[in-house]
């Protein structure tokens, strides 16, 4: 009996801890959403976050997209050659980028860049009592810190992914015409002909959800950071890991919702 309980107790503790964490994140999400729709609104903070989260993430998203598109073209060309289907390269690169790889890889890269920096910034603010100071200055930290970041990431992410999609398709095109001997005009025509508007829209909707997740996890872990440098370090790691896992989970759920008919 003792042996069984010794085996089961840690599982029980972990399960309870997981459920408690899910509960805390759910409450935090609910609070964030409720503050988004209620004044006061901090426009200056929102615009500043739009710049930090959106504009400054362009290089990393662009680089990820161009190499992904290029590699995808090579892979599909090699794979397609087994069935004499090299001509599908443009359409599969385009569909693969806009539906799946653009939003998911873009989301993961932004999670690495933004969730970590948000968690570190807010975690440092917490341990240096700056968040307490905000409260004493009659400013709600959820409204002033969380809402601008969550809103900025949710709106910036689809734009980032749209740019990333275009760059990724161009990466595939570049490899196609320089290394695979494909015709430039035919490549672009194939891409446009086979791509449907829902392919693009579904990817951008995914991107908005991923942006929301990234900022939310950064804010949640930052505002609940432990004390000292170790606490901030742990918050930063947890923000990136949880955002990445949630992006991959949400991607599967959204793909099922969008495409299972």
């Amino acid at each position: 009996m003792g042996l069984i309980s010794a085996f089961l107790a840690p599982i029980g503790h972990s399960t309870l801890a997981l459920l408690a964490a899910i509960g805390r994140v759910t409450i935090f999400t609910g609070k964030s959403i409720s503050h988004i729709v209620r004044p006061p609104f901090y426009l200056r903070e929102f615009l500043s976050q739009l710049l930090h989260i959106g504009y400054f993430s362009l290089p990393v998203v662009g680089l990820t997209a161009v190499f992904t598109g290029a590699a995808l073209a090579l892979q599909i060309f090699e794979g397609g050659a087994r069935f004499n289907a090299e001509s599908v390269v443009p359409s599969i690169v385009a569909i693969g980028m806009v539906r799946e790889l653009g939003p998911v890889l873009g989301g993961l890269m932004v999670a690495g860049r933004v969730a970590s920096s948000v968690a570190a910034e807010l975690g440092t603010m917490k341990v240096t009592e700056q968040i307490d100071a905000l409260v004493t200055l009659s400013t709600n930290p959820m409204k002033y810190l969380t809402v601008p970041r969550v809103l900025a990431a949710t709106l910036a992410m689809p734009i980032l992914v749209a740019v990333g999609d275009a760059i990724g398709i161009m990466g595939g095109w570049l490899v196609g015409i320089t290394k695979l001997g494909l015709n430039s005009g035919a490549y672009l025509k194939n891409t446009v002909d086979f791509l449907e508007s829902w392919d693009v829209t579904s990817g951008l909707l995914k991107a908005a959800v991923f942006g929301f997740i990234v900022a939310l996890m950064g804010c949640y872990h930052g505002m609940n950071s432990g004390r000292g440098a170790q606490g901030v370090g742990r918050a930063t790691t947890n923000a990136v890991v949880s955002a990445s896992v949630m992006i991959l989970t949400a991607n599967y759920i959204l793909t099922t919702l969008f495409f299972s008919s």
Partner: protein
Amino acid sequence: MTPPMIEFRNLYKSFGDNHVLRGIDLRVNRGESMVIIGGSGTGKSVLLKCVLGLLTPDKGQILVEGRPAEQGDRDAFLARFGMLFQGGALFDSMTVWQNVAFRLLRGKLKRPRDEARAIAIEKLRRVGLKERVADLYPAELSGGMQKRVGLARAIAADPEIIFFDEPTTGLDPIMSGVINKLIREIVTEMGATAMTITHDMSSVRAIADQVAMLHDGKIRWTGPVGQMDDSGDPYLDQFINARAEGPIEAVR
């Protein structure tokens, strides 16, 4: 009879098994400067944070001018307070004047930007800082200057009640003296009610009208600063004379 500005009634607060406050009863009258002393980890900061709603007490009541602190309009309640934090708690991403004028740039006290800047510069002058400091960032200032900026921010909206959390920690004796003098002058000229937390006995003597000693989760002694040296309380005597031997255990 006028109710005290701040009154703690049988206040309890625990963090897990750590019972920090175990029935605090204390009155701070309007216009009075109350200094709370006590060893590290005895719950002095917790007491202030409970008033501001940063922490929720487990039991007991906090009254501000006879009304429960947790009732009524939260913004209006907090607008009555100013607080100087131990480490300054200045916002790194903003310049000095934006820190000082934080309350005047947003919310119910919002003013035009030029006016808010002018008030911030006036408050900076009041704490002995020149106008050129206004456009620097907190990271470019020394510890003493950061404390002064924190003080300017605490008084920027002319609060009725000001809290000072260890205002001289980490400062050299001369700078500590300057901060103590500033606090005393500002509290007197504003007619504000002040609560200060400190271990620094020179601060206590410079700032306090009343002193309260917190020990073992309760107010061990309270009275006018002039009676502190003749209290006859062995705990207070040990603390104010910085003796290693006495009823307060050195290792807690």
